[in-house]
């Protein structure tokens, strides 16, 4: 019943466990890295041109958010 749906992602520099959680009615991705990097929370957002992008919540780790978001997206597509 309660997901978190869970999966792991691997990047050359790190690997991480990802949990998909619904919080306050919205989907977030909780990313726990296997090294000492601080946990990252991501969500999908919409920019002013109606394009979708990955962003960290809170702000401040956008580059990593886009990198990890792309890995998550690729994982989700593989499963679909």
């Amino acid at each position, binding site marked *: *019943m*309660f997901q*978190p749906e869970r999966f792991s992602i691997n990047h050359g520099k790190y690997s991480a466990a990802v949990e998909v*959680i*619904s*919080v*306050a*009615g*919205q989907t*977030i991705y*909780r990313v726990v890295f296997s090294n000492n990097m601080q*946990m990252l*929370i991501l*969500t999908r*957002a*919409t*920019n*002013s*041109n109606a394009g979708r*992008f990955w*962003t*960290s*919540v*809170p*702000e*401040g*780790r*956008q580059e990593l*958010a886009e990198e990890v978001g792309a890995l998550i997206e690729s994982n989700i597509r593989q499963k679909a």
Partner: protein
Amino acid sequence: MCYYNGQKVTHSEFIRLKNLEKALANYDFLNMPVQSGFDYGANAVLKRIPGKMDFEIVQMEWGFLRGNPKKWPFFKTREDVSKMRSGYKDEKGKFHPSINFLNAMGEELLLPDKVYRDAALNRRCLILSSGFFEWRHIFPKNKRTGEPLKTAVKYPYHIGMRDKEYFYMAGISEEWTDLNTGEHVETDAIITTAANKVMEQVHNSKKRMPTILSEDLAWEWLFGNLSEERITEIATSQVPWEEMEVYPVAKDFKTALEPAARFTYEDLEELELT
């Protein structure tokens, strides 16, 4: 137009992301393993979205506080709550022992005038847990007489469910507001039932355990239109002991880096698990 993380977003998207940020800042459980604590900490709770077959995960304060000022026990302020939870002396010097509303006995949930009755009928929830701790009391024998000593030696145990990272405990919730400051919290109590074979040996002082629910029972507890009889039936159900994973942990587990790490005590008898 505004910017979030350097991306141009609409006002409404900006507000949504900022609201999400605020919501997450209040959810301590996202930064820690999900676990039931001993203090009045935060629980991760699955709460039904009213009118929908859907739920959200929210954070609640463990320790049920009644929200209706007209019904006992109602505590007006956070200070009153703290006094109630830790015990206090009144102006006349009379000591009032602590009262805790952490756990609600499944057998008594629906008794008339029971504190938890309304919540059990209307606000059932699921406490998400990855494991919990209980103390086993062992009474060493007097070396001369062979009689058990009066003071027990206590050994902490970690209890989880085999092959499950998360499981559900039956719970009930209630909203409470501090009448002075306006602080508003959702609070919960964990339902307990009679201990099963393994928990009788671990929590041997009280012989109780949380009501741990299977996926099907959890669904029914949260979404079912249940009769009083069925509520009591689920609230007093016992998870099979064979599904539990139980082992001792270090006595300083509360402050340990890995509280749930297995620990071996030379002098501790094994549990009887056959």
